[in-house]
Structures are given as structure tokens and as C-alpha cells.
């Protein structure tokens, strides 16, 4: 085999290498190139740039005055990056690290090694499939995540079956239900182990009353049934009852996790809550020269949040290229019932607003920020905080952080 061994070609140099051409990566590249950074290169392992919006046929993307569908938004972001002067390369997979800010990659042209002055990880998130959720039963066909379902229906026009159970009742779950219906199939039920849907009352009511989709709360999937093809799912309700729903499609929605393979291979410090790389408000990871943006930091926020973050990171990347020191910051943690916060390190200069998640429903919670028993900030949310929905926190208090102090904690008062 000696002649066929791995041969990485000569090392190529760029100023900024962005991994992932979704909203966050494209926005970062566009802003960097527009600001005059010369060699900005974006890699994406898919054949088309755009990330998850590529297969979100529904609207709600882009500026609210000019709403776009996901695919249109993906094209808009790609065009903007390319027009600004960034190189967007698709069908190229970043494989591993070959130096502090050097990556190996492979594509149709073969293996390559790219050394950058700064690397931006924008690798996104995905839903956890049935296996990771440890759902027992047989292993039949017809079991999807929303991501696979949307691609099957909207990108490939594949037949999916006729009767679907959608597991989850958050935004992405309702999008999955729409995709099932767009494919001409029926949604037999939506199922959540929480006591209520995690979307606006209007959206939940529309699905239940106008589309006739029952929502089963306080219930989880206990078993998948079917040989070859899915024939039913068995549910277990919190009170111990079980229900069998006949169906040939099961869509496991939500339960997002970061795509963090490169972060782990690079030994980046990860946040225990988000499970993505730990970053400060300037999107600096623990590895000097390596930034992270988008859903890999907070699985999963909207495309708009990801794009905003990409643009914000561009400024920090520019400062890095002109020789600014790598900030350290202090850890930013949450206490139960909060689940995670991102960014999850903080420096006094940080300005990016924070996103959080809660594990239980909280009516207009009061969030309190403290460091070493010193109160830095306290504010009441105007809305009820629901699991799987964004809770935001301003960054107006960061200048009070003692950069040499202990961890900063966010708690519910």
C-alpha cells in the first residue's frame, strides 16, 4: 500500500479560513472581505453553500421587511460573501488540525492543507437521532430527523410514506409537520414529554384546530415497532399509560447538538451546558487564533442570530489579524433550572447579547448576574421562558466584570 499512502500536498496560506458555509460562516466571511481582509476562504462539505436554510422551504428568513424562504436566504448570503470577495468552496471537507490554525481538508481535488492566520469554526448543529435518544424497538425504515426529512422532501422529492408521528413540539417540530403535509402525508399526532407546546399559542392552535393535528403532552416514545418498515410507535405517558399510534413515519425533531468534531479534535475547551466550544463575547475559543460562531455554540438558534454573530466575530478576527492579544476572560455559568448560556466566557469588553435555555417553564423570570457574591445585573424578562425557546440577556453589565475575579453566574432569582 506504500504508494497509496496519504499524501497531503503543499501547505496553502490564507488570512481567514471559515469552516462551514451556513448563515454564521457566510456572514463572517462577507463582513471580513467587505472590511478589506484579503484572503478569506469558506469551506463547506456539502455541494451547495447555505447550511440548514438550504432545505427549510418555509419562510421567515432574512430581514422582516423582505421575508425570504430558507433557500432564497441561503443564496442571498452566499452571493453577499462572494460579492464581497470571499472564496466559497463547496464539496470540501475539513478533516483535522495540522497545526495551531492549520487544517487538512479533502475534496474532488484531493487532500490539501490550509494554514490560516485565523480560523472561524461555523460547523452548525444537528438534531439527535433516535439512537442517541436510546429509543428501543426494531430498526425499521421511515425514521427521520427534521433535517433528513426536509432534504428528502424539499431537495430530492422523495416519497416518505403516509402517516407520520412528529416527536417534539417546538418550532422545528411544527416545521417538520409542515414538511410532512407538503409531501402529501398526514400528521397523526405530535408528541412532547413536556406539559405544553413550546411555540407561540397561535402556532400551536393553528396546528391543532385548523390542521387537526392532535398534540399529546407529557408523553414520550417508548418503542418503535415494525419489521422492514415502521408500522407503529408506542408512547408512554407520564401517568404510566401506554398508547400505540399506527404510523409509517416517525420524525425525531429538536434536541439539537453542536457539530463539534473539529472542536474536539482540536482539544478546544467545551462548555458543559451547550456542549459546543466555550467562547467569550468576541467569539474567541480557548485556542488562540480560532473563533467559533453560530449554532455550534448554541444548538440551535435562528439563522438571524447566527448571521449576526458571524458579523460580530468578523470584528474580533480583524483585531486579531492586526496583532491584538488573545483575551482570556472568566467562565460564565448558569444554575438550574437554566440549562445553558452562550457565550459562556466573559470579558469586560463584551457587547454581544446572551442566549440562554431553561429546562422548565418560568413565568417572567428575574435573571440575576453575580461574580464572587457581587451583583452585576438584575432584570425581569417580559415573556414566559419555555424550554427549547430562546431566553435573552443583555450584555450591558459586562464592564462591571472583574477580569481577574471568579466565574460569573447567572441565576433565576
Amino acid at each position, binding site marked *: 500500500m506504500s504508494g497509496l499512502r496519504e499524501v497531503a500536498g503543499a501547505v496553502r496560506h490564507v488570512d481567514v479560513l471559515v469552516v462551514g458555509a451556513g448563515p454564521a460562516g457566510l456572514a463572517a466571511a462577507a463582513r471580513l472581505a467587505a472590511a478589506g481582509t484579503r484572503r478569506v476562504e469558506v469551506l463547506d462539505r456539502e455541494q451547495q453553500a447555505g447550511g440548514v436554510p438550504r432545505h427549510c422551504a418555509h419562510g421567515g428568513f432574512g430581514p422582516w421587511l423582505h421575508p425570504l424562504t430558507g433557500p432564497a436566504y441561503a443564496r442571498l448570503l452566499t452571493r453577499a460573501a462572494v460579492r464581497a470577495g470571499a472564496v466559497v468552496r463547496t464539496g470540501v471537507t475539513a478533516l483535522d488540525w495540522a497545526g495551531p490554525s492549520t487544517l487538512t481538508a*479533502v475534496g474532488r481535488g484531493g487532500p490539501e492543507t490550509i494554514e490560516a492566520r485565523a480560523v472561524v469554526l461555523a460547523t452548525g448543529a444537528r438534531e439527535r437521532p433516535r439512537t442517541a435518544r436510546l429509543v428501543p424497538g426494531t430498526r425499521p425504515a421511515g425514521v427521520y430527523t427534521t433535517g433528513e426529512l426536509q432534504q428528502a422532501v424539499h431537495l430530492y422529492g422523495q416519497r416518505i410514506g403516509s402517516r407520520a408521528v412528529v416527536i417534539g413540539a417546538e418550532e422545528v417540530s411544527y416545521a417538520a409537520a409542515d414538511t410532512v403535509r407538503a409531501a402529501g402525508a398526514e400528521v397523526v399526532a405530535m408528541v412532547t414529554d413536556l406539559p405544553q407546546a413550546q411555540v407561540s399559542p397561535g402556532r400551536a392552535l393553528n396546528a391543532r384546530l385548523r390542521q387537526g393535528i392532535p398534540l399529546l403532552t407529557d408523553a414520550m416514545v417508548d418503542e418503535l415497532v415494525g419489521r422492514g418498515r415502521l408500522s407503529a410507535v408506542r408512547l408512554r405517558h407520564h401517568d404510566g399509560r401506554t398508547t400505540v399510534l399506527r404510523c409509517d413515519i416517525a420524525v425525531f425533531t429538536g434536541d439539537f447538538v453542536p457539530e463539534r468534531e473539529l472542536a*474536539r479534535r482540536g482539544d478546544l475547551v467545551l462548555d458543559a451546558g451547550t456542549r459546543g466550544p466555550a467562547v467569550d463575547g468576541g467569539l474567541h475559543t480557548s485556542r488562540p487564533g480560532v473563533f467559533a460562531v453560530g449554532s455550534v455554540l448554541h444548538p440551535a438558534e435562528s439563522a438571524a442570530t447566527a448571521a449576526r454573530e458571524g458579523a460580530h466575530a468578523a470584528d474580533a478576527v480583524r483585531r486579531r489579524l492586526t496583532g491584538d492579544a488573545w483575551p482570556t476572560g472568566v467562565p460564565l455559568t448558569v444554575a438550574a433550572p437554566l440549562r445553558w448560556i452562550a457565550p459562556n466566557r466573559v470579558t469586560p469588553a463584551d457587547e454581544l447579547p446572551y442566549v440562554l435555555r431553561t429546562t422548565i417553564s418560568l413565568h417572567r423570570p428575574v435573571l440575576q448576574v453575580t461574580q464572587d457574591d457581587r451583583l452585576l445585573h438584575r432584570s425581569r424578562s417580559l415573556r414566559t421562558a419555555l424550554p427549547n425557546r430562546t431566553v435573552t440577556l443583555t450584555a450591558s453589565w459586562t464592564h462591571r466584570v472583574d477580569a481577574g475575579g471568579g466565574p460569573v453566574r447567572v441565576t433565576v432569582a
Partner: protein
Amino acid sequence: MTVTARGALPSTPYDVTVVGAGVVGCAIARELARHPRLRVALVEAQDDVGQGTSKANTAILHTGFDATPGSLEARLVREGSRRLAAFAAESGIPVEPVGALLVAWDEEQRAALPRLAEKAERNGYRAAQLLDAAQLYAREPHLGAGALGALHVPGESIICPWTTTLAYATQAVLHGVDLHLNSAVQQVNRPEGAHLLTTDRGTLRTRCLINAAGLHADTLDRDLGHHDFTVTPRRGQLLVFDKFARSLVRHILLPVPTALGKGVLVTPTVYGNVLLGPTAEDLDDKRATASTADGVALLREKGRRILPALLDEEVTAVYAGLRAATEHDDYRITAHPSQAYVTVGGIRSTGLTASLAIAAHVTELLADTGLALGPERELEPVRMPNLGEAFPRPYQLAELIDADPEYGTLVCHCERVSRGEIRDALAAVIPPNSLDGLRRRTRARSGRCQGFHCGAAVRALFEEGQR
């Protein structure tokens, strides 16, 4: 070259028909393919080879150190292990000689280790070595607290069971064996000195019959008037952990066998995952391949003790296999010369390791039934696609991608499967008849995302290939 999955079976009679294209049946068909004058059929109920017990095992190439000395199984495992190691090297089946550690977690188990070392010697295996706790933890730093010592068996290896079965079948078909899929045998009659098999796809005539029907071997045996054994399916549920877990474990971590059975093991796989299992549940239903909440919970509890950090990683597959357990302690391989019939029953988890030796043994028995095997030839080697992480995969080979850029275009990102590999699998001697078949041949969509990213694209390639 004949592989059929539909339509009527050929009407011309075969000299030998092997029922069951599991790892044992495929090995036997391959062995018979050495004899060019024989017309051989391999008949399988499912739509692919290796679909029963063969696809859901713990993927270990054993040394046979713990077999019952003097048994047929001990001899065939020892001999098969050598043969399979050589065949794997020749055909590119991934094998990693990681070695095994039998870990003792209490005094009773520690006391059993010297006896196991002696048993290994009686089985002709002399490299086993006792380790104290310090030596054990030096070898396995992530092992859970409380282990007292271990028996190190350096010769135990991990192997790709799926590629092994497919390599046997491919080589058999390339040398003239007819493989008939989707052909469940419903009944066997023996009018006028030949066997008449009634299958889902019509009848098939054959002079000699080999029963390698695995879980159903007892049913077929009864059709021919024998009541030598009963197969009780023993379900083994297994969890496969994400590749991130691979660095947590270096050896196959075997439990010390006790009166309560063989117990749960943790082992790396050649694909770079970590496997935890199996459970052992005796059942009546030969189709009960569902995993259960209780089984998964039990495995996680055991896994937490053996390798605590394992539980922090995600599970990428949960599966259950049925072992063809019988009431006997040994394999049940019996020739019935008057019926030109050989039954190959009770092949347990060691069957993968022993498969080539079983095949040679069965062929000898067949000759004893009076069948003239005719001249013998060497088989042309086959070269299988590499699914092993310890060996270069196509995406890592610059020259290969230079010659064909399809090997640089990755479709399944978690497992780094290229479009070239999927294309090759669809055009192979034994092509897949389902997406699962394609998955087993390429690893496409067996990774952590389970198709979130690539599922639709892989299906599109498969459906294009079917047209």
C-alpha cells in the same frame, strides 16, 4: 456469475445446495467453489447475505483460549482463527489485533483467572498472562475503579464481521456459486434420491443438502426426520458508541465467565466505535430482534462500571441479535450419508472465527456422504473495500482521488464515505438490495448523525443505482 433476488429459481438441479447465507453458509459455499465440477447453490431467506445472527455479533476474532478443551468447537475455533486471519490479510478485511483483558471485579473472579490461564494452555494458547491491578490500569487508564486484576490474552482481535461474510459470498459467486436471495425454504422433500426444496421463489432440486440455516436449522433438520437439537434464540442487545469514545479503550474488555454466563463486554470496533454488550435473554420468538428499555438500561449500568466515561458519549446504534443457542455445549455438525445431507447447527458466537474451519470440516463430511468433489483449484483472491479506521480509507488516498475525484467527494460526513465508494458498492458482485445493505457495505449513514446530513442524498444515490 449469478446472484438473483426475484423470479423463479432455476429448474436444473444442483449438486450441492447450502441453505443459509450467514457467515457459516457463505464460508461453506466458498469452500465448495474450489471444486469447479460441482454445481453449487447458496439459498438465503433474506434480501442479503449475513442478515441473521452474523450481522449482530460482537465482532471478535477469537483465539479460542476459553473453549472447552477437546470439543469440536475448540478445534474449529483454533484452526478457523488462523485461517481467517490469513484470509482477512489477503482480502482486505479489517482486523486489529488489540488483545483482550478479562477483568476481575471481585475476589471470586480474581480467583478464577489462573484457572482460565490453565484452560488457555490446554487449548494450545500459551501467550495469556496474569496482570495485577496496577498493570491493568496502566494498560487501561479509563477503566472504572475497583478492578482487581486481569488475564491478558494478546491474540484476541477485532474484525469486520460484515465484510467477512460478504467476502466469502463474493468469492463464491465469482467462482460459480449461484446465490439466490429472498428464497426462504418452507419445506424439504426427498423423492427419488434428490432433495426438493420448496421456497418463496418456487422449487429447487439438489443432490446434496447442507443445512446452515442458523436460527432455523432445527426446523429444517426436523423436515428431514432428525430431532438432534432445538434452537432457543438468545437475544443479545448491543450499544454502539460514537467514535469519540474510541480513545477510552485499548483492548477488548471481557468479563470473567461465571456460573451466570459470559456477561457484558466493552470492545473497540474496527470502524473506530466502542461496543457495549451483549445482554443474554433466552426467548421463543426467532424474530425478536427489537431492543428493549430494560436491556438498554442494563447495558448502561454495566458500562458505567467498566468504563464510566463511555456513558458521556452518544450512542450511534442500538441493535439486537439472536444467537442460535441449543441445549448442547458444542457445535452440532452431523453428516447423514443416506440422505446426502449435512447439518451445521448450534453455531454460537464463535461461528465467525471458526467459519473457514467449519467449511473445511463440512466439505470433508460431504465427501464422506459419497459425493465426488472432483478436482480442486486455488481461488482467485478478492479485494474488499476497507471500512476499517486503522487502514487508509479512500478519502485519505491522494493518488486514488487523483485518478477518480469521486473518492474525494464525501457524501456521508460522519463516516467519511465518498460517492465513489457508494457507486462501487452499487456495482459490486453482490449489490445491496436496501439502504441498510448499502450501509453495511459502505458505513454510509451509520455515524453520529444517522442521516440528518446525508440520509436523503444517500437514498437518492441508491435509488439512482437501482434504476
